[in-house]
Each structure stands twice: as structure tokens, then as C-alpha cells.
């Protein structure tokens, strides 16, 4: 089966265990390590990436759930070359990361949130953004999400 990961064509062998979570496929077989392992049970969001543009927690998303031609996007694939994605840009402006380990998942979740709610209120962020950050960067994530919404609306 052929899929794409960040636009690159990747084949998934017949022999590959279909139960393997997409997280481990991406990290160990596609060698993209930006997507992180935190809990393995869909609780923390560190492993969040996109399948056909929708955020999924890849530790709990088996490879067998993919279909021919599916497009997987990881944190390594969201910038436009030199130009950061608006969410990355906003994260940079607010100096969000501490350890940074959760932040790929935070940004991938935020991109999906902004797709659904281009101009989210604090309440919408509270209800929809529940990735764990053990370092406690929530205040800055909230501000950065609002900032990214502005950037994406062209309000640079």
C-alpha cells in the first residue's frame, strides 16, 4: 500500500503488522522523530499528527486504519520551506516551549482546532484542546493559538 508522509510517497509492506500504531511506523520506519510518545493510550496528545488533514493521536491509530493514498502530515511537514507555519510562528513569538517534548502534538492539535474554529474563543480552546503539557505552558499556548488565528486571517 502507498501512502504519503509529508508529501513523500511511502510504501507499507504486506508483512508489516497492521496493529502497529502509526506513531511507531512514523518514528521507526519513516525515521521522522518529531512525533512523540507520551502515554500510548490516547491520553496525552504528544503523538498527534494529521491523517488527511485531521488530527489523530497516532499511538492509538493502527497502521491498518490507513487506506491507499492517505496523506499523513507530521510536525516536520507543516512549514513552507524556510517559512514557518503560522502556528509555529505564533509559538515562536510567545516563546511557548519549555522542554518542548509535547509541543509537536500541541501544534498539530492547534492546527486542527483552527481549521474547525478559525477564530476560537477561550471557551472553545478549553473544550477542544486537551493535550497534556507537563511543563505547564498552557497560558502561552492559549495566547499563541489566538495569535495564530490572527496570522492565518492575514492580521499579521
Amino acid at each position, binding site marked *: 500500500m502507498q501512502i504519503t508522509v509529508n508529501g513523500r510517497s511511502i510504501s507499507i509492506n504486506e*508483512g508489516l*503488522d497492521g*496493529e*502497529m*500504531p502509526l506513531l*511507531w511506523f512514523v*518514528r*521507526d*520506519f519513516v525515521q*521522522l*522523530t*518529531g*512525533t*512523540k*510518545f*507520551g*502515554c*500510548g*493510550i490516547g*491520553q*496525552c496528545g*504528544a503523538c498527534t499528527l494529521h491523517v488527511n488533514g485531521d488530527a489523530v493521536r497516532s499511538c492509538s491509530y493502527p497502521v491498518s486504519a490507513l487506506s491507499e493514498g492517505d496523506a499523513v502530515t*507530521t*510536525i*516536520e511537514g507543516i*512549514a513552507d520551506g524556510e517559512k*514557518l507555519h503560522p502556528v*509555529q510562528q505564533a*509559538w*515562536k513569538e510567545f*516563546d511557548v*516551549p*519549555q*522542554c*518542548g*517534548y*509535547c*509541543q*509537536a502534538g500541541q*501544534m498539530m492539535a492547534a492546527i486542527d482546532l483552527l481549521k474547525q474554529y478559525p477564530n476560537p474563543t477561550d471557551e472553545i*480552546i*478549553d*473544550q477542544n*484542546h*486537551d*493535550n*497534556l*503539557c*507537563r*511543563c*505547564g*505552558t*498552557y*497560558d*502561552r*499556548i*492559549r495566547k499563541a493559538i489566538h495569535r495564530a488565528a490572527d496570522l492565518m486571517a492575514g492580521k499579521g
Partner: protein
Amino acid sequence: MHMTKAQTRGGITRRSAIRVFIGGGALIAAAPSLTLAAPSSSDRAMTIRDLFGGDIGPMVIIHQDNIVTLEAPIPDMGTGVEMALPMILAEELDVDWQQVKIERFKANSVPNAEGQRIQNYVHQGSGGSASVRTAWPQLRKCGVITRRIILTAAAVKLGVPYDQLSTDKGFVVTGGKRFPYADFIDDALMQDAGLVKQKFTAVDNPHEVPTYEIDIDGDFWAVKPRQEYAVIGKDVASPRLETLLRGEETFGIDHNLPGQLYASIERCPYIGGDVKSFRAEEAKALAGVVDVIAVPAVTAPDSDYEFNTPGVAVLATSYWAAYKARQLLKIEWDKGPQTHENTAWQYENSITAFDQDDKRDLHNSGDVEKGLASADKVLDVQYQAPHFAHLTIEPMNCVASVTDDGCVFGAGVQYPNGAIQFISDIFGIPVDNITHLTCKLGCGFGRRARDDYLAEAVYLSKTVKRPVKVIWTREDDIQHDFFNPMSVTRMRGGVDKDGTISAWDCLFSSQGGTNMQSFPTLLIPNMRIRHTRNASKAKLGAWRGPGHNLAGFYAEGFLNELAELAGRDPYEFRIALLGGDRGLPYTGWYPQRPENPTISTKRNKAVLKAVAEKANWKGGNPAPGKGRGIASHYTFGAFAAMVVDVTVDQTDGTFQVDRVTAAIDCGLVVHPSGARAQIESGIIDGLSAAVHQNIQFDEGRVTTRNFDDVYLTRMDTSPRHIDISFVGEDAEPFGTGEIALPAFIPALAAALYDATGVRIRKLPIGDQLKKT
């Protein structure tokens, strides 16, 4: 299944001597007294190039295009030291921050005449909020020396006397002309190493891993006045941030070695237990599985202490295959000696321990019993808190390769030189043949000060003669953590008619210690703190502010109760208690602690006054469902005071933290954004601890499994506003990582009391606020 003595080798006595637990379990490196000799590398050094291994100065590389690479010497576990430390170096080196790149300084130690390893230039460990504090003088010195080396070469090359040269942001300036540092590097490297004083001095503080500092003659030792700072104290941007945001930063779990196998280990869940026998036929039959082998607990030759938990490892060609096959193992456990230990037993046993004879006085002044007997009003209450887990966002992991040539390992570690020494001592590999691959740490909080996760990977690689990458599951990470100890504290206190405290008696029962020896303890005439030990055998370790983390909850919580008993405002009560400006003798540890340290009532009053002013403190919040509380605590050299505002749902008892106002005196702030981040982090971790942490035990093992059992604070419950002020900028810089949490928890408890009338004396808060 313990590693036999033949498999281990000497040296551990020395190492046990350099990593000890103090107070409440703070992992503090303490050195035996030393006879110091110059490191052998300096004997050979002929030129600056030789002295600094090819570089122009310690942790400094200046490229031909005048770009400067600064190497951060202390692992960053979210603490921001990969920014703060290079900033210190950049300031004294006088380079343009826009031209700076940041890399990581590898573990660096040299042997002295006795063969003992001494860290070179700077202390490299992360703990005790000590990074900025300890590196501050050392890195300034490195910056000054490197600048001096460049200027000396410039003087010769330009034919201008040294004292007619100055520098400006990476340029040597003379007679109105500017020359990039890069112009002088080749010459500077070839200068006689004698330019840098060969007298290596050791920082022989008993609480630090010994460090050699380089030195120069006093004439050249002039640090910049603070008014001239161009980098320190500024919110300059992180040169590494974009790498991280692109998902390209390296964490421990991202290290891979060619030809590696992946391992997933089923460890004995029972405290003090072992593997009795196991069957692995089914596991071995799974595609990708290469081997299944026992992992013994490694011990030092002269001790029974087990560094890691024994278990059975599945080795496979992918992590997933190893993990999946592990579920098929059939293991019979020796359940060990603690099967009677469960959570309820731990609390009962702690209370039983109140009556033990061998209580230890941590503080005793005046006559407590007399003071209580004569008091106008007395209060006798009990506080308690459960075991806290570290729950670093990145679970433990390590990749290691052991060959005849030595050992290469990649893992996030808080003490790189300590980790290397550990591997050397236990596995008999010379320190110089061990390479640590540096990286960022997905949190540490004290967990990555331990060696258990390193021991397993090194043992497995040595055994199977291939690189092995061990990844822990979250369940492994919680079950085999080294916890912050649970404790029960009996508080008895009395107030006199004049509204002052007549006496206070604290009996602290726990397997671990506490750090209550600062304020208010030092201010109370009849004051006693005793420690009695319960019989729990849960594994303990350093956890964010060891001994301090709950000292605030207990001492400041009870102080708020006494204020109420005395009918006084808790803020005014504290200011009055602190009294006139003075220093009181302090017995606790903090980084760079002098011989006879004191703590300042003036500085504690200053943070309280600042927070009261900022929050417009007028006592509690009388509005229904609203509450406001105050507390402060002194941790590892820094003062924190907090006012917390909450809204409590009056039916279901759930609450929201509306605002946290914090005033911090950590001395000079090196990187404001980073320092604020650490305070934000401590507040949110405090909230997580107070609401969610509650590690459960049954039958001598941990039964809490994953983030569904211990959910932790997320966006929806995180404080709406956090308002931080730094005061006390004139003082020397201290750390910030562990400062906020101990003050936040009691301020939160006070706010909840103000809103509901329910005193939170027991953590987690649980449903104590729910109306029955």
C-alpha cells in the same frame, strides 16, 4: 536475579560518596574533601588551541564569518538553561546575540592525581535549582578569559597596546576602527597557554561535584557592570527554538544507533521482589523478536543497593514487536517482603509512627509544651499528602552500545558526568571510553537524576553485543518511579491573647524528609519540628523541590490556620511575624551555600509586600463562591510569595483558578521569559499535584497506571491569569525551577478555604469541597 559481583567492578564507593540525599531527599552532589592536582591535559597544553581542545575558550567557537557557537554546559529539561547559560557567557565575551548559535557542551571531566574525575570549567548537573546559580561565576569567568585571549592576539596583530583596545558585540575596537573577533582567532589559538593561568582552582563546596575553574591574573578579572548588560536581563530570542518547532530537536528517545535492537522490559512490580521464573516461547515466536533475556538488578560490589528493578526483556527489530511480544511473557514473580504494603497501610503506619521513640529533632527552640499549655487558644490538626510521581512527559529511555572500545549511550540525563561515572563503576568501562550523546530532556523533575534506565540498556547491549534501545511505557514509568514520599503531619499550635503564636509543634511522619527549617519556623519562639519514619519501602527520589514541595503546604497552611485562630489577616500576620530586617541562621541546603548562611526577613517581607500590592490584597474575597489566599516559601535560595484567586462551584465543589499573582526574589533574572516560564510551570505543577497526584499501592506494588489514572492539569483547568513580578534584582542570580510550587499549594488551599470554609489539610483535594 542479581548481577554477580564478578560482573561489576570497583569505584562505586567513590561514586556513592558523590551522590547523596539530603533533607527531604534532594539529590545533591557532595564531594569528599580533595587534594587537588592540575589535570593532566593542562600539563601538556602548549597553546590555547591545545588547552581548549581546538576551541578559543571553554564552550566558545568563533567561526570565520564571526558567527559564534556557544555550548550550553547543563542539560535542559525544560528549565531554559540552554538559553540562560549561553547568555551569561555571551555577555562577558561581548558578542552580538544575533550572531550566536547554541550547541551542547559534552560531559567534560578530567582526572586529578588520585584518578578522581573533576568536572572542567563548569558544574554540569541539573538539580536543586542550581544551574544558573552555580554556573554564574564560572561562565562569566569563561567569557572574560576568552575575550582576553582574543584581545591579547589583537594587540599583537594590530600593533596596538592592549589597553587601547576595547570590544563591541563581537568586534575589537581601536581608534574608531572595528575588527571582527574572527580576524584574530588563528593567532589567538596559537598563543601560549600560559596566558590563561594554569592554576586550576577547585570549587570545593561540599555540596557540589568538584569543578576545576580556569583563572587569569586579577588585573584582567573585571566583569561588566550590570548597567552595561546587553544580553542578560533581556528577552532575547532562542537560536534553537525554530529547530524545536520544526520537530527537529533531539530528545533522548530520538537517538538511534546503527544496528540497534529495541527492548521492552517487564519489570518486577513488587517492591523488593524478583523474577522467579519465566517462559518466553510465545513471545519468541512473534515476528521480529530476536531474544528474550533476564535483566538482573545491578548492584555495586560493596552494597546490596539495586540500581534498577529486575525483569525480563524482549529484544526485537522494532519497538512495536518488542512491546507486543512482552505481553505474551509468562513470568512468575517472587513477590518480595512488602506485600502487606498498600495505600491505606501507608497512612496507618505513618500515624502509628507518631508514637515511635526514635523521633529526630529537625528544629527545637524554647519550650513547646509550656508554650502550648499557656496558650489562649490551641489547634491540633493533621495534614497529609500522597506519593507524587514525576510523570516526565518523555518516558524513561536509553540507547546504548557497548563494544570492546567502550560505551556510547544516548539518553536524557540530569547529571551527565555522574551518569558516565556510574556506567564506568558498574560495568568496568574507563570514563574516557564512554560517550554520552547529548540531547534535550522531555522533563526531568529529579527523575533523570537516577541511573536505573541507563543500567538496563548498558547491561543489555553488553550482553547481546549489539546496540540496544530500551523504551519504557508510561505504565513502566509510573510503576517504577522514585516517588516524592507520602507523609502525615500532626500540627499543634497555640496563640496568645495578644494575637501572637505562643508555640508550634510539628510532627512529620514519612519515609522521606522535609525542609521546614526556614520561615516561619525561625520566627517562632517555642517551635519544634520532629521527624518520625514510617515503615514504607516505596522507592523514593528527588521530586521538584525535594523536602520543600510539601513543606509549604504544611507550614504555610498551618500558619494560615493560626492567623485565623488569632483573628488576624494572614498577610499582616506574616509581616508582623517577620518583624525587623535581619538575617536568621539557616540550616538547609541551597546552591553555593556559604559557611554559616542566614536568610533574610527583609527579602521575605519584600516578596509578600510586592504580591500584596500587585494583587491589591485586602483579605479574602467575600463574594459567594469566590476565594483568595496567600502564602510564601523560601526554596533553594529564592523567595516566592503568591496570592491565588479561585471560583468554586458551590454544588459540585469543582473550582477554577482565576488568577495567580506571584512575586519572586531569585536575585538577578538572566532570561526573563525563561524565568517566568519556570514560575508558570511550578504553579501549574502545583495545581496538578494538589488536584491529581495520588499514586496508589496495593500488595506491595504500584497500581496507578497511566494518565487516565492521574490526569493532570490541562488547558481547561489551568489558571486563567498568571501575573509574575520579579523583585530583588540587585542580588546574585538564583534558580527558579523549584521555587513556585511550594508557595502555590498553600496559597491555593487558603483560597479554597476562603471560598468554602473547608480547610484543605489532605491532598489530593478530591471531593473535599463537594457539599454533602
